[in-house]
């Protein structure tokens, strides 16, 4: 007897509908799964068998063949368990197949009969929805992450026996979980910019970065608060839009990362350690998984100790920074992950960390310093807009002056972001950081005096021509923060300041 049920598998972060064909025939009892299934699926045999038995059903003593179609796609993951179990139960006539609508099943079987949560549930639900599925049974562990998908019936399942009972008796309502939609966003968990002592220059730069999606490099000795600042970035960024939220959640779901803060709308912050491998950073691996840059999609990628990163690893970031996506090519197929993030990098001014300090002596030689700085290549630096030097703060007995709070900063970031959305609504991009070439001259018109100012900066402060383009973008964002249509000289002057450190450290003058 043949039964077909439906489930899904992942290719990158997108799901593909899979039909699970279960056939029971007379013959020597046996259980085999075909259809390019990897070991995690082969092991499903044991889980499914025990799960069915422990849920009060009998496992049919027949020859069972399961085919996962289309059979030419490589499949992996434990979420096939549920659909295989359901397929077997229907084929063995221990439950009836409802034919009223298209259904799919997602979940992993446990030996005691429970249906467990799986990785990547959200992208699968989205894919099934587009494939025309109307009702999805999934583990209650995954239920909350998928709630934002509309126009599809999601039924949480606790264990197999309950599921069968409800499936047969539709009058009983499915168990409901309540999620408080009006839950207040817990910014306090992330800290606040007013926790930071001093560093107003860096905070201002972070506000600019958040408003215009510019990449920034924080330079400062140990303990000046670089990490503190990066961690607080989400508190001054606009909340994710529903679209962004789904995009970010898809990636996090595939990687099996917690989703709570994204569900609240907070942009993700990723802080990979500098020993990270290339595959972990940009994505890859045997089963191609999204890397840190994709996990930071619509959020912040914070790279502490930037020069300590492997140089080749850093160079891999160049393409995603420009393209906002990463394509991972395999001989069979290539997979694309989105990676639109704000890069916040941090580094010491020299290997010992004391160069330029007021209080400590630097013990590095010129050569050591140069070698350290050379870890960051010119093309990479070129993708950074803001260079901020952070000064060491001394401990004082007095409570430090309360500085600007995240809430105040966020208010103006939001306005600036809105300016950009309005301005670029006809364009393919939506932030100042993406301005280049023709769009730059279109949206960053300068007065005669401003042009002269840039010329002076080019000559006197040895700011390279390339940097001048960057400066105009930053100035655009600063003007947006001021709610000005026209870029004023003050905006340019401020923008030059943030770009100047690059020249100071690396002597980028051309």
């Amino acid at each position, binding site marked *: 007897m043949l039964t077909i049920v439906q489930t899904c598998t992942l290719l990158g972060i997108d799901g593909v509908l899979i039909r699970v064909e279960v056939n029971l025939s007379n013959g020597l009892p046996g259980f085999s799964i075909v259809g390019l299934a990897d070991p995690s699926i082969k092991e499903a045999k044991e889980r499914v068998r025990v799960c069915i038995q422990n849920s009060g059903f009998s496992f049919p003593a027949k020859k069972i063949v399961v085919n996962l179609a289309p059979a030419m796609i490589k499949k992996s993951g434990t979420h096939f368990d549920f659909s295989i179990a359901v397929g077997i139960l229907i084929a063995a006539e221990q439950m009836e197949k409802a034919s009223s609508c298209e259904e799919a099943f997602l979940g992993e079987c446990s030996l005691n009969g429970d249906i467990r949560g799986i990785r990547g549930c959200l992208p699968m639900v989205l894919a099934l929805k587009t494939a025309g599925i109307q009702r999805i049974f999934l583990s209650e562990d995954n239920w909350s992450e998928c709630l934002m998908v509309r126009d599809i019936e999601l039924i949480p399942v606790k264990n197999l026996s309950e599921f069968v009972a409800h499936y047969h008796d539709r009058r009983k309502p499915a168990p409901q979980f309540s999620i408080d939609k009006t839950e207040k966003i817990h910014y306090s968990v992330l800290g606040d910019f007013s926790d930071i002592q*001093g*560093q*107003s*220059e860096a*905070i*201002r730069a972070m506000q600019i970065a958040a408003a215009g999606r510019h990449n920034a490099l924080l330079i400062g000795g140990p303990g000046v608060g670089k990490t503190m600042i990066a961690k607080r970035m989400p508190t001054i960024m606009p909340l994710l839009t529903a679209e962004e939220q789904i995009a970010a959640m898809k990636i996090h779901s595939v990687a099996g990362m917690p989703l709570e803060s994204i569900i609240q709308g907070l942009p993700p912050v990723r802080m990979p350690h500098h020993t990270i491998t290339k595959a972990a950073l940009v994505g890859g691996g045997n089963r191609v998984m999204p890397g840190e840059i994709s996990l930071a999609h619509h959020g912040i990628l914070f790279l502490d100790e930037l020069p300590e990163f492997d140089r080749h690893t850093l160079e891999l970031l160049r393409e995603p920074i420009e393209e906002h996506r990463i394509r991972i090519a395999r001989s069979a197929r290539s997979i694309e992950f989105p990676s639109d993030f704000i890069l916040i990098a941090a580094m010491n*001014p020299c290997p010992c960390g004391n*160069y*330029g*300090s*007021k209080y400590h002596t630097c013990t590095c030689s010129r050569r050591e310093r140069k070698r350290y700085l050379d870890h960051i290549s010119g093309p990479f630096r070129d993708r950074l807009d803001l260079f901020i*030097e952070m*000064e060491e*703060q001394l401990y004082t007995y007095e409570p430090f002056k309360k500085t600007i709070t995240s809430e105040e900063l966020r208010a103006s970031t939001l306005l600036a972001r809105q300016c950009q959305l309005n301005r670029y609504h006809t364009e393919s991009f939506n932030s100042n950081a993406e301005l280049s070439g023709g769009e730059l001259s279109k949206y960053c018109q300068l007065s005669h005096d401003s042009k002269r*100012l840039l010329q*002076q*900066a080019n000559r*006197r*402060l040895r700011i390279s021509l390339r940097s001048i383009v960057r400066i105009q973008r930053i100035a655009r964002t*600063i003007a947006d923060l001021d709610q000005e249509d026209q870029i004023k*000289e*003050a*905006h*340019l*002057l*401020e923008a*030059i*300041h*943030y770009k*100047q450190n690059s020249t*100071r450290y690396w002597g980028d003058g051309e």
Partner: protein
Amino acid sequence: MKPFIAWLRAERCPYEDLRFLIQHKNSLEAILSAPEQWQLSDSLSKKTKQAIRDYRPKPFENQLDRQMRENKTRIVLWNEPGYPESLYEVDDPPPILYLRGKGEFPPLRAMAIVGSRHTTVYGKRATERFALALSSEFITIVSGFAEGVDTIAHRSALKHGETIAVLGCGIDWIYPKSNESLYHEISNRGTLVTEFPFGEKPWGYNFPFRNRLISGLSEAILFMEGTHKSGALSTVNHGLKQGKEIYALPGDIDRKSSEGPNQLIFDGAEPLLDPEQILAKGNRKSTVSEATTGKTAKLVSLSSLENLIYELVAAEPCSVQQLQDLSNQSIHDIVSVLTSLELKSLIHRQGNQFYRTRR
């Protein structure tokens, strides 16, 4: 009075106190006869009070007399006849000047010619030409008696006119030694002037300090040669603060020694093309400047915030954070003003985090 002030100057009392005492010279008798009462005055520093107590008129007067005779020196006090009007305008005017020489002092009209100690053939030729032409028109040439441009300026001026050498040491020191013959020529036909007491060595820090007198005595400053780090630029900066006319000698753009003057021209100084040009302009200027008071007229105009930040940086090298704490301005204003001042070449970033004034 003079020996008393000379004593206090030799004791390195603050100029402010000395000017205060000169102003109250009518009570000098009283001060000296009853120094105890004057100790109560809040206007004087501790150091000055101590020096007044230590003052023994007889032996010091004898010593000073001998020194003045030996060095043919005379003393001019602040707020007294013979003190140049224009020096009232400089920062912290010296309360006492030691003069030597038969030249006219204070000069009727004077212009400073300054530049680095290392000259090129071009710089030498131009310095000679301008010094000669101006001094022939009864303009006294003021300079700093150093090697190089200064020496050439003094020597050329002495050919047909007069010169004033502002020293960075006591008048009894001949520094640099190589200028010994010039020293004597100037005492014969020009004026040597210093604010430093007898016996003061030519300490390095004296020179930038005395530069304000070079510019103070002059109605215009001619900067001939020097790199962008040249010490003579400090004279130019004093001149700017005092509202003097600045001229700079244009030079080849790839010539190190012309970096300073070329930059000044770029910043708005008048290029030195012909002595006639200065004479014509100088005449016009002198009538104008009499009408307007000697208010500070900077070469570049600064906004009030720029001025505030500049003053803060000038007082002490500051980091951005310190500037914010001191000025209480918003960070984005400070940052843009800093860049603007940098563009105007008024400040630069020292080391990593600190801004300071140029030169």
